[in-house]
């Protein structure tokens, strides 16, 4: 589904070179670590060396199947590992950093992956075991500093723990609700010699049981509610994409004719062109999606957290709902913001595939007519302005060239919402962004990882000039490795999203948002050896994109867009779902 790749179902363990009877090989801890990564199917590592992980780098060249990409900042490594994992179902991203500053530079990237449930393994060098706790050179409490942004973390203290810990870490990262895991690896253990024994048996942890099976009674009850529903709506989140439940979702929607909307992170889980498709919901969602949710008598939320971006002002969310149903793999998400009447804790694919046979075909004509009317009344649209390039015009030109063969990695800000709304994502996994943490600077390094996972797809990085500058050092990595990403800078000479908020919600006082002083991106790109172009005219957009797409390698395209272009629809601060303001 995602990409043309066969889906690696967890770890494709290559056969051990040594027969089971041969004595285990003795090697250094660093080698044990690298061998273990191979056993977990790792082929790409994004990393940066330093004093505390030099034994890993000492042995890395001996492992040509572990392709190491030297990033130019550890934050880039974490985001690249995230992009690598996020864009290929089943894959786990891996990044390396040294102790202290190196490890701390990973934190934002780990937090980004944590919020969006992305499986990433970060292996950080640590000072020798005997020096831990002494404030020795480049020591930091990595376990402590990352605790709230990881799913789990390990401090290695014995050579014999290295292989089993790595195996367990991958299991934890990719199972259940996925997430990032840190392995803190003291330098002396990297050098110490031990036996390499990769555990054969699957990981079993009493404190991390497999997700529960859906309760058939609850499923039957959902089927009954669907049968009686007059105005049903489904909202789908990233959980649907993670579990690969898109087909089941489509079937459910078609069988019972239930309109489907989605969260920002759920974009692509349902094809936009489908007659049952709504659009994004909530704060910057489509007016017609919000209207549908607010009028619905049954709302089924699948694989989503239902955060404040979805609900807007909480009491405005789904006020007429009689049956709010929540399906999610994480019990802690059930009832966290809205309390459902009925919930199922399970993997979305499992739950939906068991629910489907219980659902009877039906069609609520009146409701669907109403929805179509709202779609007509509140289309997502933008307003052209003479002499100014609109961001949507750029996105439409991109879409017309690549259709659903391109992956769009968006940054944070206006560019993110434009990219979510103005590309007709018809297949899953074509739109990625930092929806949960909202990390500016995510898209550019993440798009490198995406390209490694999807070498056959066009990869666009859509970003504002503000976000691009947060991690633009990775141009060196891009060019050095000829990573074929097309960078689309939607340059509005300001921190656009903040500027829009200031204009509309903070008395129109523009403060610290002006980015008229930015470097000449063409010269900058060229300084890094990157093909680069710029324009402010609509007629150049197509030819520039054509030239960029024809070029095999990274290209930077700067589009000077209307500096006053805004994101619409939007719900003003503190207002409710139906108070959305549309473009005018």
């Amino acid at each position, binding site marked *: 589904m995602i990409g043309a790749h066969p889906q690696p179902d967890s770890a494709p363990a290559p056969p051990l070179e040594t027969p089971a009877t041969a004595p285990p090989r003795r090697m250094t801890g660093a080698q044990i670590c690298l061998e273990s990564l191979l056993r977990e199917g790792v082929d790409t590592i994004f990393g940066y060396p330093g004093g505390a992980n030099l034994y890993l780098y000492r042995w890395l060249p001996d492992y040509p199947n572990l392709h190491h990409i030297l990033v130019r900042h550890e934050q880039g490594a974490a985001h690249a590992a995230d992009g690598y994992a996020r864009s290929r179902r089943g894959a786990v991203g891996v990044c390396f950093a040294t102790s202290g500053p190196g490890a701390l530079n990973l934190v934002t990237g780990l937090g980004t992956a944590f919020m969006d449930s992305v499986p990433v393994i970060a292996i950080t060098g640590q000072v020798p075991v005997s020096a831990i706790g002494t404030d020795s050179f480049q020591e930091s409490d990595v376990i402590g500093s990352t605790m709230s942004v990881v799913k789990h973390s390990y401090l290695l203290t014995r050579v014999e723990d290295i292989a089993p810990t790595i195996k367990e870490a991958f299991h934890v990262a990719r199972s259940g609700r996925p997430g990032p895991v840190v392995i803190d690896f003291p330098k002396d253990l990297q050098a110490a010699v031990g036996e390499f024994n990769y555990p054969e048996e699957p990981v079993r942890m009493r404190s991390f049981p497999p997700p529960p099976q859906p309760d058939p009674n609850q499923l039957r009850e959902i089927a009954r509610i669907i049968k009686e529903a007059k105005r049903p709506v489904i909202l789908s989140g990233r959980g649907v994409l993670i579990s690969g439940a898109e087909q089941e979702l489509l079937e459910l929607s078609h069988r019972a004719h239930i309109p489907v909307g989605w969260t920002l992170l759920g974009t692509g889980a349902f094809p936009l062109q489908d007659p049952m498709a709504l659009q994004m919901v909530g*704060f910057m969602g489509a007016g017609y999606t919000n209207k549908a949710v607010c009028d619905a008598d049954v709302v089924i939320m699948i694989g989503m957290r239902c955060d404040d971006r979805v609900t807007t002002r909480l*009491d405005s969310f789904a006020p007429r709902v009689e049956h709010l149903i929540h399906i999610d793999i994480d019990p802690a998400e*059930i*009832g966290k913001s809205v309390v*459902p009447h009925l919930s*199922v804790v399970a993997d979305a694919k499992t739950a939906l595939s068991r629910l489907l046979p219980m659902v009877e075909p039906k069609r609520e004509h009146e409701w669907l007519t109403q929805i179509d009317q709202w779609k007509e009344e509140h289309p997502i649209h933008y307003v052209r302005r003479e002499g100014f390039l609109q961001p949507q015009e750029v996105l439409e030109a991109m879409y017309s060239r690549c259709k659903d063969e391109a992956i769009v990695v968006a940054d944070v800000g206006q560019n993110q919402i434009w990219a979510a709304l103005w590309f007709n994502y018809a297949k899953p996994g074509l739109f990625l962004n930092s929806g949960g943490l909202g990390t500016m600077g995510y898209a550019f390094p993440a798009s490198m990882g995406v390209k490694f996972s999807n070498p056959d797809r066009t990869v666009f990085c859509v970003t504002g000039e503000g976000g691009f500058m947060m991690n633009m050092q990775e141009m060196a990595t891009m060019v050095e490795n000829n990573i074929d990403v097309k960078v689309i800078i939607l340059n509005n000479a300001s921190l656009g999203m903040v500027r829009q908020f200031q204009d509309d919600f903070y008395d129109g006082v523009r403060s610290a948002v002006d980015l008229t002083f930015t470097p000449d991106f063409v010269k900058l790109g060229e300084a890094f050896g990157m093909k680069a172009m710029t324009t402010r005219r609509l007629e150049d957009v197509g030819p520039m994109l054509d030239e960029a797409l024809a070029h095999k390698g990274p290209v930077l395209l700067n589009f000077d867009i209307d500096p006053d272009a805004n994101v619409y629809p939007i719900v003003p601060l*503190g207002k409710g779902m139906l108070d959305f303001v549309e473009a005018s």
Partner: protein
Amino acid sequence: MNPSRLVSVMVENKPGVLNRVASMIRRRGFNIDSLSVGPTEDATVSRMTIAVHVGRQAAEQATKQLAKLIDVITIDDITELRSVSHELMLIRMHAPPEQRAEILDVVTVFLGRIVDIAASSMIIEITGTTQKIDNFVELMRPYGIEELARSGAVALVRGDQAGARLGGLGLDGAAPEGSRTGAGAAGASVTADTTGDI
């Protein structure tokens, strides 16, 4: 009545687990009244008994978040189960010879023990429910408390309830009794409204 919820958590006996549990409770904005950690019959498992100062619904969210921690094996909100919950206190009283008899009378009623006596003070050991210990402290105050140390509660569910533990995971997701369900229902929320932050 003590408004705090009593949560019993079985965790892997590994370094850093206390940190993870405490940090999760802090991060979700809950206040710990008391927390005790100790070994169990199984050397690889520790038991934490946590009294948190929250309502039922917030406690449910807290237990679910704790249950997600990889080192947490089981977690039970035992507040509403029949359980035995005790703490231990050591209290050093100002006790010149002329006051000792009076103090000893109270200690006897509370089934406490004298564990140390010096010229003008003594240390009393007392165990029991938090309520009982609170009462004892109040009675001791007039005599002059020099110092005291309390262990925080440890608790076990009674034998006849052991099979009926809540599990804490809320797997059925049923809304807690008395709460208004459904979105749009005023008060359905336990989160702050952060709409509009960028």
